[in-house]
């Protein structure tokens, strides 16, 4: 306790950590001090002057966003003097403000509006023409700027300087002519631009795709998870009366997103609103026609039963389906249909590299989680360009580099965005991954050496907390065993307990792996034996279908189809009995024989497992379109039609079964998953048997 600071705010005593800012100490007491420029994730600048408070013994009012607590301080945040200053500041901010709240996206959730109601003047005393600017300006693909609404808090500019380092916007002119604008020669096309919409405390920055989405008070919010990549960013789905999704908003979870979203995720929700399948369908005389759920289920079941147990069926299930859906698909495929050709991807993955997170653990690394990056002084990225592969994790690495001066070593075939911040760019010819990793390992062991590798090794041979990040692109290597060996050498060179984080491509790739949606692996990461051992991979399934070796395909979600050569996909689908289960036919190039209408993530409850094994829940935000249903319910119906009853009536019940099947999930209590998720255990069984060999 002794290293806490004791002070008094509005008559209440508080003990708090040294260096706590007054505005934060007040918040700890539940006292609201209004702020505009202050934001907990940005360095304080003390510019807006909204947060002035009185400290006894100080002649002037003091900005509480830049002043740390001091022992014995006596602070007043609500006396007449402070309130007059606050009212005055709001009046200054409003003299040129257009007061166009009725047509402003921010209206209803606007701190300028809110504080004006709470603390502000009731009437204007300003009698002159207001400042005018052309508006709105489209300053980037996704961002509109209304300078008349801007209150110059500079949060947007500071985000681009301090967090993303995409310095495409800045402040121009000065004084009363000052304005935000794009840096000459740039437009605001940062893939993180959307965060400034949330940071902007007024309606000066709005989303081009979401402009005029509706009135905020008519919008409901539902917690969910972004399906854009495997980071598992927590989001809030904003929707109108459960009808359509109008925007996605961040929902801070320090384990995954740290409060930010990338534009791909933020604006990538059209698939929920557009081109949706509302009905089950069957193919009749060359035409897809609407069918009852019953009719379509029966027809699909008859196709499946025809090919069950015969090796002539292939199953592809999308890695953006929920764990519950994937678990059901796996159950029907292996247990009911006795089929072993099941995969979640149609890109080339070396069979030895499928369970990449297990491979690195076998190599001697500790199973890493994203927050390990926050502790590391040295970060090694191997075969991954986070900019593309997991943008939010790139921000986490940038935070480590900028705020903690961590150092980076990048191994990649080209210079990546993060490469700007390091001299240690180990650029290699594709195919040379194993030898680069091995030579780095050797150099670290010998404490240095020649060239870039030697320099990087000198850095890494010092005692400092490290984190390694590996990417899924390595899974494609034809000579993966050499890389696995090299990773082992690197792990032992770097010393014990270095975490390694695996970057997977899709929001539930990790879940698909845990649930056995991959040939040769059963749920729980157990290597398959016996008859299920020899399933085909996604590409092999498509090729076999094209070549007539498979007679039927059951495709759940179109994502795997998008990964393969379109000609192959077309030829394959046209050549078999084809059951398609999904939310849209947009990416399905051949009319299926049966169409089963599945909901999207926005319409159902369930869980996803993110890149580092965090299990997180999604909640239904909008109502299912037409008669579409959650995938596990469709599968249960198929099972019943095939004479196999599967007992599960809720997502929770399915999850309980998953817990039984997947040891790494066995410790997870449903009640604790909540809205922030739970880390799955590292207690997966030894995975390498027969894999790295």
């Amino acid at each position: 306790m002794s290293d806490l600071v004791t002070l008094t705010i509005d008559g209440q005593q508080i003990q708090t950590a040294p260096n706590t800012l007054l505005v934060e100490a007040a918040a700890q007491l539940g006292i609201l001090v209004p702020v505009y420029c202050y934001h907990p994730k940005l360095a304080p600048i003390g510019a807006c002057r909204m947060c002035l408070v009185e400290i006894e013994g100080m002649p002037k009012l003091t900005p509480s966003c830049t002043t740390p607590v001091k022992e014995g301080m006596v602070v007043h945040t609500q006396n007449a003097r402070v309130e007059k200053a606050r009212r005055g500041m709001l009046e200054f901010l409003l003299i040129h403000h257009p007061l166009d709240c009725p047509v402003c996206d921010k209206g209803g959730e606007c701190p300028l509006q809110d504080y004006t109601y709470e603390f502000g003047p009731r009437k204007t005393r300003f009698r002159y023409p207001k400042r005018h600017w052309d508006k709105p300006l489209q300053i980037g693909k996704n961002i509109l700027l209304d300078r008349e609404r801007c209150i110059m808090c500079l949060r947007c500019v500071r985000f681009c300087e301090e967090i993303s380092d995409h310095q495409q916007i800045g402040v121009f002119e000065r004084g009363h002519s000052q304005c935000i604008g794009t840096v000459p020669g740039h437009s605001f096309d940062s893939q993180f631009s959307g965060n400034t919409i949330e940071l902007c405390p007024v309606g000066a920055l709005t989303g081009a795709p979401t402009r005029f989405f509706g009135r905020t008070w008519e919008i409901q919010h539902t917690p969910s998870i972004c399906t854009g990549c495997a980071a598992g960013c927590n989001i809030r789905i904003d929707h109108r009366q459960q009808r359509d999704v109008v925007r996605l908003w961040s929902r801070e979870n320090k384990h995954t997103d740290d409060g930010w979203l990338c534009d791909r995720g933020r604006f990538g929700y059209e698939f929920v609103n557009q081109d949706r399948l509302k009905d089950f369908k069957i193919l009749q005389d060359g035409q897809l026609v609407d069918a009852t759920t019953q009719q379509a289920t029966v027809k699909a079941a008859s196709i499946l039963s025809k090919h069950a147990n015969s090796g002539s069926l292939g199953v592809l299930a999308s890695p953006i389906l929920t764990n519950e859906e994937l678990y059901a698909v796996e159950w029907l495929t292996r247990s009911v249909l006795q089929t072993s050709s099941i995969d979640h991807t149609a890109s080339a993955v070396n069979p030895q590299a499928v369970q990449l997170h297990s491979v690195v653990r076998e190599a001697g690394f500790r199973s890493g989680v994203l927050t390990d990056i926050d502790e590391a002084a040295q970060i090694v990225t191997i075969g991954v360009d986070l900019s593309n592969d997991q943008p939010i994790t790139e921000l986490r690495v940038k935070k480590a580099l900028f705020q903690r001066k961590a150092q980076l070593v990048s191994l990649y075939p080209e210079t990546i965005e993060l490469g700007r911040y390091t001299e240690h760019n180990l650029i290699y010819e594709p195919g040379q991954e194993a030898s680069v990793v091995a030579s780095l390992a050797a150099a670290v062991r010998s404490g240095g050496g020649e060239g870039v590798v030697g320099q990087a090794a000198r850095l890494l041979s010092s005692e400092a907390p490290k984190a390694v990040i590996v990417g899924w692109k390595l899974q494609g290597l034809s000579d993966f065993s050499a890389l696995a060996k090299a990773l082992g050498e690197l792990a032992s060179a770097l010393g014990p307990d270095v975490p390694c984080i695996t970057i997977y491509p899709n929001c539930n790739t990790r879940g698909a792996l845990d649930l056995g949606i991959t040939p040769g692996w059963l749920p729980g990461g157990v290597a398959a034996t016996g008859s299920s051992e020899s399933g085909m991979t996604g590409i092999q399934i498509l090729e076999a279908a094209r070549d007539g070796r498979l007679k039927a395909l059951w495709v759940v979600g179109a994502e795997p189809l998008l990964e393969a050569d379109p000609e192959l996909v077309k030829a394959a689908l046209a050549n078999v009995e084809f059951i398609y289960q999904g939310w849209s036919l947009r990416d399905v190039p051949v009319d299926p024989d049966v169409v089963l209408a599945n909901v999207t993530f926005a319409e159902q409850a369930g869980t996803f497992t993110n890149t580092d094994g965090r299990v997180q829940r999604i909640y239904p935000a909008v109502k299912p379109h037409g008669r579409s249903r959650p995938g596990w319910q469709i599968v249960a119906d198929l099972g019943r039609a095939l004479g196999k009853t599967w007992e599960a009536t809720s997502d929770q019940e399915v999850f309980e079964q998953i817990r039984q099947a997947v040891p790494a999930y066995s410790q997870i209590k449903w009640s604790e998953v909540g809205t922030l998720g739970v880390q799955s255990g590292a207690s997966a069984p030894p995975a390498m048997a027969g894999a790295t060999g």
Partner: protein
Amino acid sequence: MANEIVFSRNHIDNVKDLDVYVGNGGYSSLQKGLTMAPDELIELVKASGLRGRGGAGFPTGMKWSFVPKDTSKPHYLVCNADESEPGTFKDRQLMEVNPHQLLEGMILACHAIGAKTGFIYIRGEFVGPIQIVSRAIEQAYARGYLGKNIQGTGVDVDLAVHPGAGAYIWGEESALLNSLEGQRGLPRLKPPFPAVSGLYASPTIINNVETLANISHIVNNGADWFKQWGTERSAGTKVVSISGHVNRPGNYEVPLATPMMTLINEFAGGVRDGHKLKAVIPGGSSVPILPAEKCDINYDYESIQAAGSMLGSAGMIVMDETTCMVGVARNLVHFYRHESCGKCTPCREGTDWMFKILNELELTGGQMDDIDLLLDITDNMDGKCFCPLGDTSIMSVVSGIEHWRHEFEEHVRNGGCQQRAQNGH
């Protein structure tokens, strides 16, 4: 002449030339000053009672002593020659006439604070001084007064000129540092203070031209010699820039505590012919205006403060009875509105709003309640701005209404400024 320090060589023809300067005792302080221990030098300047001449009047020796002794970072000295305060034009003459005196002071100051590098940040519009000081630096390098091992003392000092790019706010020391670093010239959050973390986050001392110009004389002649002028709290002499309605405007170096009326009547030749003194801004545009009846005071820090104003940058603006005080306020607020950097709300918006009201009062009269509205706006700015620019932009309005409220009211009643109408503006 006997009462001059920094102007004492101004009469010497071409003293800006190194040979002439050296021939008249220039650079003679270096042998003594550079062989003193830095701490001794700081103590000497402390003992002299020299206060910063840039405006705030902070004791110079004390400021130097704030530089941490135990850093591995380089230390810097920065000379603030951005002189942009309306009414102030002394640094310009100090640089134009006697640039080596400044360099000599900077070399000593660098030694005192452990800096090997100094920058002279000169207001960009000062094309003449930029050339003259740059030439002096070249000469000093050529003759071993700058560079390595200055005059065999083992002390190294490099100096360079950096021209400003045209904003008043860059005279504020932390904005100046940002500008010098190539950033947008906005004032910085304090703490940390520059002495601890200034230029490139390294310990930095910023001093005004006149402050630094005094140093060689203090080293040559001692602290007691310096204190023979002025008072206990206002030691030494001061260059006062006198402008406005006087017969002989110009810079005059006088002992601190010289009567203000002596400055106006004797040095500046009195109020212009036949007119009566109405008001004086004693220390540059950022200080309150004193009405004539309060001007019978000594020109030193404490006396001017007691009278309700400040010595500031010693830019003394003299106004006779023909002056319209609404016009004065309008003119000065226009300046601050133009120069506000825009960082903080009250200065950015307050200067704009004040100007709009004053402009209307002056041109078409405005409304009677505008006067109290103006005072309320100043109250909402006073002490609430990020930096002193905003806080002091209200001075002419507050003191103007305090002493000449009737003039503001007449403007309202008359639908604008009568004088302006008569003069056909």
